[in-house]
């Protein structure tokens, strides 16, 4: 169901009530996708807490807090944060060395005795910043500190799923915490992304520079303060346990993943000494560079990559595994502050650790050219995770209760399969609407009865393109204010827009509305969005061309007049020629018995649902959802749509031509514009306390 229908608040009130009912007060960890979504959830929680207080459930030290990146919370300058808060800088400052700048907010927080005494309540991002400002505490580190004691933590997915960040942020959560993933329709994608790494020439060059610099620094340190290095050597002998202190301050380089037992092992001898380790890194980087010179595509398993590596450079699997940990330790020992300059090297080290740790479920893919047609080499080495379960497993194993929820999890049985989890309960809920505030339609053909489809064979057929175009022209005539058109890919959008231009269709649209286009560039897109919004505000009206899976489809809401209709042109299948996708499909087929076509259709339809779902943001909003492709009318596609959309597609609306769609739209838009009396809904979608009691009685009978 679309957002704004009360999903979050229902989930929160249920879990918070549960939490408070039992004595063990299990912590709730609520993961959401974006910063605005996190803030919204916090605001809901705040309202819930207030309501509970007013209605006789005193909070008794209830603390709800959200965490996002420094960038969102820091009031000072976060760019220099690391160099102002690292332990050695602070140590030096304590020795009264001159010219050292510290962050006073951070110092305050770590010295003030009050720092663990945050008054109870729910803190939204603004509240947190205000509180930090009041007490002169760093809001970011305050939040980091408080999440271990808070009753409800709301933060981004990555802090839970990304093993690097999880280790850093969430390691203290107890086993009985309740973990909730909201908006989880794309959770498998996030899992996979958090374990995949791309290496390009840029990163390699930067790594080489970093290694050289490290060599210089080591030589320097050796001359001046050799004991430091010796100390490190001794620690490493004992095993790779980071000091708690370092973790507090983020001064570890993020470690992709290491099984716990490995952490306790001693670091292999050949990389224990700093200078040896640096040379080791150098050798590895050079090897990868050499591989990048190949001019044809290579796909292999991690083990064959390691095999070849060993044959050429005599580098073993074991030291590779320790790469990123060892680098972290080195950075700490050498007291390096400008970590940003080492990002390339960090990535390479993570790459080394990942590739040597996992064999199953990964593929190493080397592509010398960006696309089939390009002749200028731009080599990329992908280490692609194919198995979403790898990132999900640790979470499921560690916590007793994990809840996965979204408005568009459908078909729901796909998710346990892909994530390799056993769902204790799966439930799909329908929703009540105050009125039929959205009208999904499947348009299968143009007014001339030629069918529409983005199927590869016909997608460039002028008749199909023209029919797509006329659908948009006609809709731009009847839909007020904002209209969003989604295309399956940038490539297709480019070609179809070019053809529309030749056919004069763009001119016809322009008569009714302005046209804005989403591009891969974030800056351009946000400019386009801003202008689009303005045009919707001042009555000019606008069409936004955007792409399924793009930024707009995932994160931008078209509330009210910003989106009165969404047209999904074609079915947004993934680019099936992509080698990574092929590898993943093969993996899914062999390991999880998910057929290629099933997965592709599932993935395409969930993105289509995501796109059209943009139009409806809350119960007072209304909008049209138009699926323009004849294949949507087929049951195998339709049944994959979320049930709240599918159940609203009536028989008459499932096989329309353009002119029929236009006339239905007109009628819909008119009836939605009539003034709407919320009180009529009492008893239907709006329940008074009596209704709830009655309902309860019915249930118990």
């Amino acid at each position: 169901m679309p957002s704004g229908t009360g999903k979050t608040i229902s989930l929160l009130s249920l879990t918070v009530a549960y939490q408070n009912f039992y004595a063990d007060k299990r912590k709730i960890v609520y993961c959401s996708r974006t910063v605005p979504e996190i803030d919204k959830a916090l605001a809901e929680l705040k309202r819930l807490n207030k309501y509970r207080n007013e209605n006789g459930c005193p909070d008794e030290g209830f603390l709800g807090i959200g965490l996002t990146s420094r960038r969102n919370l820091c009031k000072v300058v976060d760019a220099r944060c690391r160099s102002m808060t690292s332990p050695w800088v602070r140590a030096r400052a304590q020795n009264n060395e001159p010219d050292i700048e510290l962050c006073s907010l951070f110092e305050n927080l770590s010295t003030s005795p009050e720092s663990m005494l945050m008054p109870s309540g729910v803190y939204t991002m603004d509240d947190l910043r205000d509180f930090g400002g009041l007490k002169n505490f760093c809001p970011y580190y305050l939040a980091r500190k408080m999440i271990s004691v808070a009753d409800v933590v709301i933060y981004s997915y990555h802090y839970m799923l990304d093993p690097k960040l999880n280790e850093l942020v969430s390691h203290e959560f107890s086993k009985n915490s309740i973990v909730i993933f909201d908006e989880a329709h794309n959770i498998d994608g996030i899992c996979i992304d958090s374990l995949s790494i791309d290496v390009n020439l840029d990163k390699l060059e930067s790594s080489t520079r970093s290694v050289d610099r490290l060599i210089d620094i080591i030589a320097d340190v050796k001359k001046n303060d050799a004991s430091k290095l010796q100390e490190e050597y001794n620690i490493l002998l004992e095993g790779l346990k980071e000091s708690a202190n370092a973790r507090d301050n983020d001064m570890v380089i993020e470690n992709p993943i290491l099984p716990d037992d490995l952490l306790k092992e001693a670091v292999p001898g050949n990389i224990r000494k700093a200078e040896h380790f640096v040379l080791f890194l150098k050798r590895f980087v050079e090897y990868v560079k050499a591989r990048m010179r190949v001019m044809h595509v290579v796909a292999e398993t991690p083990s064959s990559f390691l095999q070849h590596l060993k044959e050429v450079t005599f580098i073993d699997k074991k030291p590779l595994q320790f790469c990123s940990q060892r680098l972290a330790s080195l950075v700490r020992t050498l007291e390096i502050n400008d970590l940003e300059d080492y990002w390339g090297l960090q990535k390479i080290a993570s790459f080394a650790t990942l590739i040597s740790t996992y064999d199953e479920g990964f593929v190493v893919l080397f592509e010398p050219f960006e696309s089939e047609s390009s002749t200028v080499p731009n080599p990329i080495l992908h280490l692609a995770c194919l198995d979403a379960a790898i990132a999900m497993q640790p979470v499921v194993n560690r916590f007793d209760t994990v809840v996965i929820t979204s408005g568009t999890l459908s078909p729901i049985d796909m998710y346990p399969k892909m994530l390799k989890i056993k769902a204790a309960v799966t439930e799909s809920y329908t929703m009540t609407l105050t009125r039929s505030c959205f009208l999904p339609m499947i348009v299968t053909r143009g007014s001339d009865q030629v069918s529409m489809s983005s199927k590869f064979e016909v997608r460039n057929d002028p008749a199909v393109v023209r029919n797509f175009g006329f659908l948009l022209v006609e809709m731009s005539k009847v839909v007020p204010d904002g209209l969003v058109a989604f295309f399956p890919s940038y490539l297709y959008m480019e070609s179809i827009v070019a053809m529309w231009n030749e056919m004069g269709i763009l001119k016809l649209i322009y008569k009714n509305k302005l046209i804005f286009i989403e591009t891969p560039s974030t800056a351009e897109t946000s400019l386009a969005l801003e202008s689009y919004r303005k045009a919707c505000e001042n009555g000019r009206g606008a069409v936004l061309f955007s792409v399924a899976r793009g930024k707009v489809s995932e994160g931008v809401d078209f509330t009210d007049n910003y989106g009165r209709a969404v047209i999904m042109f074609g079915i947004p299948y993934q680019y099936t020629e992509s080698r990574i996708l092929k590898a993943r499909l093969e993996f899914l087929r062999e390991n999880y018995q998910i057929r290629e076509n099933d997965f592709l259709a599932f993935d395409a339809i969930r993105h289509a649902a995501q796109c059209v779902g943009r139009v409806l943001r809350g119960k007072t909003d209304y909008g049209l959802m138009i699926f323009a492709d004849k294949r949507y009318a087929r049951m195998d596609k339709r049944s994959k749509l979320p049930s709240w959309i599918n159940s609203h597609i009536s028989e008459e609306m499932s096989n329309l031509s353009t002119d029929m769609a236009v006339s239905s739209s007109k009628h819909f838009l008119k009836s939605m514009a009539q003034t709407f009396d919320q009180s009529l809904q009492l008893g239907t979608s709006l329940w008074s306390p009596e209704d709830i009691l009655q309902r309860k009685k019915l249930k118990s009978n």
Partner: protein
Amino acid sequence: MSSKPNDAVIDLDEQLLKEQEVGYTWEEEYKRSWDTLQEDENGSLQNAVATLNKKLKLKRKIKDKQASQRGLLRYCYIVFDCSTNTSERDLRPSRLELTLQVIEAFVLEFFEQNPLSQLGIIVVRDGLAKKLTELSSNPTDHIKALRDKQCRDPSGSMSLQNALLIAMNILRQVPNYGSREIFGILGSLTSNDPGDINQTISEIKNEKIRISIVQMAAEVQLFKKACTLTGGVFSVAMNEIHFRELVLNFIIPPPILLEMYNTHLVEMGFSIRVYDQIPTFCSCHHKLTLSGYLCPRCKSKVCSLPVICGVCQLSLIVSPHLSRSYHHLFPTISYKEISTPEVSINCDGCLDSLVNLKHNLSSGGSNFDSDTTRKHEDVFQCPNCKKNYCLSCDIFIHETLHNCPGCVNMSNSLQN
């Protein structure tokens, strides 16, 4: 939730919801109104009556909650859209034709009910706005202008801002005790403006001018915002009948804006009708006429009332004008629907019998011809004088008569 057996409640609710949505039969597009009219066994048009009844109830509801202080001196500009969009035939005969028809009816009815007010008309086409008529209270001027050929030829785009600017410049000059209004009838979904229209809207708000708009296709945020910001009404027409109704709704004077909630004394002249033996010049058209009205202050002659004296700027009226405007201030009390009595009674308005149909049927003794005798199922009672009326009489009393005959009778007999 969906698969549990005890979800019957939800299903029932949804059924209800659907019923509410269907609501008015005239809201359905595909069906023509005659499809929905069905004769029942007794040959009466059940559905038509039900619809009428519902309409009445709705009206009453609106009326009851509205504020009682209303602006009787209205200065109002009608802005109508003549851009290419209005050639659409989704409203018959076409958006523009329908607009013109309804405006004509509106103008006549407007002066009938608001004799102290003035109207002007602005037409928008080709991105420009043009003043068709000046503010005046002479319906024939407006209607003549409307019948001009150029109004029937839609072209170009629509600019709300241009229209608003023209209207604002005129309306800011009218006396500030009057209610200043702009009434837009728009078919276009876009407004192609030369500048920042939001700026214009806030200026209009400062001038205490109210914008109301009837849209013919869909809800446009800008239009809606313009209306709500300035205290006007925005509505979208479902079909021809609804459109006419929305436009005519505007005849009822709007409640007075809060900022103007203090009373003014307005000078007015009650003119005297004169019949001259020899023709004299009128001050309004400079023509020789025999009859006319004299301004009590400067004694100049005008042809028709109400009007502003062209010589001394006095508002000239006759007393029925005032009283006709009056009923907006003191609306006739709403009647209550009561259950049909078992015994047959007569409507105190038309003297038709108000019979309980079911009662009658079950007794089986109806031997009068069902074609000649109308039967009324709904009975309405005046809470004041306790007289009973049928539905048609109720509508007639509230929409045309503006006086409850029962109550008037009562006060007459009291005086005697």
